[in-house]
């Protein structure tokens, strides 16, 4: 079972939302999700597979699946589920009907006139490309094509640079992963620095005067505050 499925399954069942969410639009909310790469990378397509899979997942229950984490006790467990659900909802949320799909897809494509702007934001005077591309997008939506198919069609016609952001395939994944890797490394480095600062020995005083510690230091600090504050 895919990790994303298991995360949502775990969270939905734990909060008792598995039946409540059926047909309430949560499945549609996954369409147009900003984190589509997370779904696509796991074999979902944005428009069709993901909602079906999620709804089916919520309905089916799949109780045989072993838990991902050790189960906490009841109240804590419910809170834990709620936390995971919150995370999952924000990770996979979105909105979508046809006009929303047009808006979403139009913002995931670039105009090819050379203006360097997103398709739906190109107002380049006399731009022939954006008008043609918008019509093509509308036609593809009318045909009922799913988002992947539509984007593939544009890539075939205009080349890979027509997609406004790197896809979550092959080397392009690196584009998405690297900033978070740097963030993680940066946090680890900052924590290391803070620890090394904390563990650094106090500089020794030449005349052997003891350095104030604990409550004595707090007293000094209070005194200095009183003197330096207004």
């Amino acid at each position, binding site marked *: 079972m895919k990790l994303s499925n298991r995360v949502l399954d775990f969270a939905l069942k734990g909060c008792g939302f598995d039946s409540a969410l059926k047909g309430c639009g949560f499945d549609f909310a996954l369409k*147009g*999700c*900003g*984190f589509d790469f997370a779904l696509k990378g796991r074999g979902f397509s944005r428009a069709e597979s993901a909602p079906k899979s999620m709804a089916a997942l919520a309905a089916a229950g799949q109780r045989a699946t072993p838990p991902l984490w050790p189960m906490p006790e009841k109240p804590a467990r419910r809170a834990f589920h709620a936390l995971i659900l919150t995370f999952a*909802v*924000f990770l996979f*949320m*979105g*909105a979508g009907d046809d006009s929303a799909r047009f808006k979403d897809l139009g*913002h*995931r494509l*670039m105009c090819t006139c*050379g*203006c*360097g*702007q*997103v398709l739906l*934001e*190109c*107002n380049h*005077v*006399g731009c022939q490309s954006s008008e043609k591309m918008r019509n093509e997008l509308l036609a593809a939506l009318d045909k009922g094509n799913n988002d992947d198919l539509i984007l593939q069609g544009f890539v075939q016609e205009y*080349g*890979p*640079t*027509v*997609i*406004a*952001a*790197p*896809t979550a395939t*092959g*080397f*392009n994944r690196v*584009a*998405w992963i*690297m*900033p978070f890797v*740097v*963030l993680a490394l*940066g*946090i680890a*480095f*900052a924590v290391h*620095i*803070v620890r090394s*600062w*904390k*563990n*650094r*020995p*106090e*500089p020794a005083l030449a005349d052997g005067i003891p350095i104030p510690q604990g409550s004595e230091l707090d007293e000094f*600090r209070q005194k*200095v*505050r*009183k003197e*330096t*504050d*207004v």
Partner: protein
Amino acid sequence: MSQIGSFALLLALGLSAYSFLAGFLALFGKDAASARLGETARRAGIATFAAVLLAGVVLVVAAFNDDFSIAYIFHHSNRALPAAYKFAVLWSGQEGSLLFWSLLLAGYGFVLRLRYKTDQRLFAYASVIIAAVQVFFLLILNFAAHPFAIMQGALPADGTGLNPLLQYPEMVIHPPMLYLGYVGFTVPFAFALGALIMKYPGEKWIQITRRWTMVTWCFLTIGVFLGAHWAYAVLGWGGYWGWDPVENASLMPWLTGTAFLHSVMMQEKRGMLKVWNMALIFATFLLCMLGTFLTRSGVISSVHAFAQSSIGTWFLVFIVLTMAVCTFFLIANRSHLKSEHKLESLVSRESSFLFNNLLLLVVCFTILWGTFFPILSEFVQGHKVTVGPPFFNRVAVPVALLLLLLTAVGPLLAWRKTSVESLKRNFLFPAVGSLAVGGMMILFGVRPWEDPSYFYATMAAVLSALVIFTVISEFLRGGRVIAGKTQQNLVSAMIQLCHRNTRRYGGYIVHFGVALVVIGILGTPFNKEVEKEMGFGDKINIGPYTLVCQSYTQDDNPNYANEWAIINVFRGGKQITTMYPERRFYKASGQPQTLPRIYPSFREDLFLVTDVYLVYEGKNETTGRPIIKAHLNPLVPWIWIGLIIMVFGTIVALVPNAAAVQVAATTPARAPAHVGAGGLR
């Protein structure tokens, strides 16, 4: 004219080269002869300014005289060009803007060399480094991008004119501001490198450059925001930031410069982060160079890289060379940069600065990574990919929100250690206030769970409110204490508070401005737009507004022909304004240009102010009617108000502190009050 300009540039190169070489040699000697040599180098540096200024004046005069024998003037001006834009010709093209860069650098160098008595040795080092940068730019100007190159063949009757996108009042001030920022970072860079090379004792170099850095940062801030405003008011797509490589190039040094302004306080007050500060200021300078490289080289396609050529190689070599020099001295003299203190607690101002720096640099890295990924992709995969707004919005925005959280929490933390009680006491009002803002948004129909953009907007609103309430509570707390001691009213007390520690409270005002900017940005998910062909009396309904086409017409002048619509704007049945969206056709360049019109609804919605933004998209050739695109952009005006407050805050921070308040002996004794969490400053 061109001979005078060319001679001035050659002379400037000679003088700056002398200033560099003589100044460099003088650094090694301690006798009277070396001192005299150093003095000649300083004077040569001053004379460089005069020579570059002469070249700049010659170019501007040539533009005003329509001297089309100079190729640069032919390509960037024409006879009908208004006078203000003829002045702006200086920075409208590649050669001119490089000359402008060089002129500003010479100007900064001129001021620095006049103030050399502050610390002669350190200033001598900084002067040599600035001279080296000056030599680089003058080499390019003389041998690769000569602004006084002569037109070949017959003298043309008129020029090809200025790019229509640049014929807008802001273009007269946006590039100078940006360049003042870019170039200005050379000064703190020169002092930092100089201090590192000479193992300058103490933190005095930071105190000397503090004002330089803040002024430079302020110019860069104004430049970045004016660029955004120009994109908003001229490009006519209804937005102000498109994550274009050139925009990114201006944002990156701003981010590292902002990190430097924060972390440098740790070095001043606690003797910590010395290596980090050096690295930050080096990175900021290199990113400024990288920005110029991106704008000029054409290595990355951009919507507004107005001048491109092969000088990118020059910049690349310079950047690599500078990086090598900086890295060498950073490693060789690292023992000089040891921290003097230890960290007492994780919950302290020091660690908040550390994490603030981390997040600023992660955002900067993300932008750099996204900007250069297309090149990397071409190298690895054999084809380019586009890294556009969806990437930056998804990756940089969450990190930026974390940064906003730290902006709110940081001022509540004291240096060294913050007690939990003081944190609770100081945090309660801002936290409750900001959560109330989030609740109100949900109450008014914003559903953060429906769409990621709504979620981000709600988070941004809550965190901005947190920043604002933090700043207000800090002012109120300090103001009350002063009011109690001096028997003044609260407002006077807060002004006095500000004057007593301008840097701290100026910084808070800047934070307040940043929060307003974020509020302006968070309106984006709620934008609306309608496009319609409009005949006489036709209407567009958008939000609470009704737009009625009163008429449409056209005009002609020597510079351009134009057509525009006259649109009356109604709200609640009452006419509130008339707008004139316009489209121009510039004759000299043969290029069309839209000119959107913007009405901010301050009179109708003071806090939820909305821009009514009209664009003349074109004309239906069959019916002759104009096609109007109407945008409703909520909250955008707060961005520009936020900028004004940020600039005001920086000016406050630049004002010297007032002397401590002398409390009269007759003042009644009161219980000691606590001013802010950061008592030890």
